[in-house]
């Protein structure tokens, strides 16, 4: 028995091809994932992301708890609504999940709380892990399954959203900086996303989502499925949990070094000791981008051969609709230079090694 979001019937009515994703019946596309991808790069598209798990973290020790739970540091969030991307690591310094945490109140106020959004496929183990780490602390974790979530992304996304909302919500959106969200009459509107474009992620009570989704569609925002979501995030150089990292690898070899807050040194976060040991011993691999000029498509698990250096593996690969060639994220030996070969069904094909992202705001960004 799979789960269905509150928008399921609307997806079917809009022609969605539905697939099982982490136990949820989700739209893969509504016809052509490439057309949906291009809509997000050029105008606007919307995604039902209600399958994602929302957990509110409250209690007097909420901040202290998250400062131990996450490799990134919520103390960096100085303003109400600000968001942070972080890995949640186990004691071995390996990635249990990646997540976004929003500061829902100003720092230090009484009743200080946070909202965390984690992946759906990892929901159960995440909740179990998060609950285990609350021991001895005054923290309550409250899952919010009755909340729906929609991402509206693209250069015209914010204008389109404002056109279907009231003035006070429009003003609230105008006041959002990038990576910040605010509550508004039971909604939570955040300027975040997973596409490499500007846009919003909006958390709405389940019984209000249908009307909002329909209004967005009427305003010309194209519905987009998981297919486009994947090509967009890969062009944007963003990791996908389960493909680019999981519980067998550390953030240091997953392109997530920037999400580890080493300072202050006194902060003891879960996995810190293991990461320090890994650094001291010398990190053996790194995450890079690959670009293939010849015809074909790079795929996850294909072997990467770096002459004179060693071997690596593609963690996710796809065809980039924006660049009209194939791109990939790959974990390779640290000594890898500008070129490598990929084993595509027994044939060695040359690729260039670049620093992700590949695309930001509709434009190629690697050289």
């Amino acid at each position: 028995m799979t789960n269905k979001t509150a928008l399921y019937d609307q997806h079917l009515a809009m022609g969605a091809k539905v697939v099982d994703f982490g136990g949820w019946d989700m739209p893969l596309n509504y016809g052509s994932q490439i057309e949906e991808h291009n809509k997000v790069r050029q105008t606007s598209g919307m995604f039902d992301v209600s399958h994602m798990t929302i957990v509110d973290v409250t209690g007097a020790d909420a901040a202290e708890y998250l400062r131990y739970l996450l490799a990134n540091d919520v103390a960096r969030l100085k303003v109400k609504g600000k968001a942070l991307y972080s890995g949640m690591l186990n004691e071995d310094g390996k990635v249990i999940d990646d997540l976004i945490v929003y500061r829902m109140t100003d720092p230090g106020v009484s009743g200080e709380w946070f909202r965390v959004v984690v992946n759906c496929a990892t929901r159960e183990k995440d909740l179990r892990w998060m609950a285990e780490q609350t021991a001895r602390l005054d923290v309550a974790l409250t899952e919010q399954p009755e909340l729906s979530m929609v991402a509206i992304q693209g250069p015209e996304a914010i204008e389109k959203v404002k056109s279907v909302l009231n003035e006070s919500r429009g003003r609230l959106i105008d006041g959002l900086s990038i990576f910040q969200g605010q509550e508004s009459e039971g909604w939570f509107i955040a300027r975040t996303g997973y596409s490499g474009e500007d846009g919003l992620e909006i958390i709405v009570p389940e019984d209000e989502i249908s009307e909002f989704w329909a209004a967005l569609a009427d305003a010309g925002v194209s519905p987009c499925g998981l297919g486009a979501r994947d090509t967009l995030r890969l062009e944007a150089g963003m990791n996908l949990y389960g493909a680019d990292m999981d519980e067998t690898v550390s953030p240091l070899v997953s392109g997530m070094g920037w999400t580890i807050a080493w300072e202050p040194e006194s902060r003891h976060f879960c996995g810190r000791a293991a990461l320090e040991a890994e650094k001291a011993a010398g990190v053996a691999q790194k995450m890079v981008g690959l670009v293939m000029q010849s015809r074909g498509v790079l795929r996850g698990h294909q072997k990467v051969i770096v002459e004179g250096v060693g071997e690596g593996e593609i963690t996710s690969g796809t065809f980039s609709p924006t660049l009209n060639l194939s791109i990939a994220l790959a974990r390779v030996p640290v000594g890898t230079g500008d070129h490598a070969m990929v084993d595509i069904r027994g044939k060695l094909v040359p690729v260039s090694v670049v620093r992700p992202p590949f695309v930001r705001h509709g434009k190629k960004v690697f050289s």
Partner: protein
Amino acid sequence: MSDIRNELKYVASHEWIRDEGDGTVTIGITDHAQDLLGDVVFVELPDVGTDVAAGDDAGVVESVKAASDVYVPLSGEVVEVNEQLEESPELVNSDPYGDGWFFRIKLSDVAELDDLLDADAYGELCEGES
């Protein structure tokens, strides 16, 4: 429901075959196959003049989602390939039975045509899969 044409023949690997009546057949992949693949981004086809045997893999269709071999349903010589697919692979999605055709074969054994599935049999096969 996918589009299955009565005038065509099929094989279980989701290629369609049109008997041109002159000893040649035209081959492509079915609407059901393109739907499973999703957006096609590259098609690699055999060279004209290649001798092929029924069951050979003669190329690859790559969609955003996956790579899939193209099987030759009948033996013979490749006499024409659809060069338009190099520039416009999306024709496989938009017009799988028309402009999205793959290649044409001059048959070496016309009797092989008898082994193909008709539209009803292929339709049943697709239903059994889904």
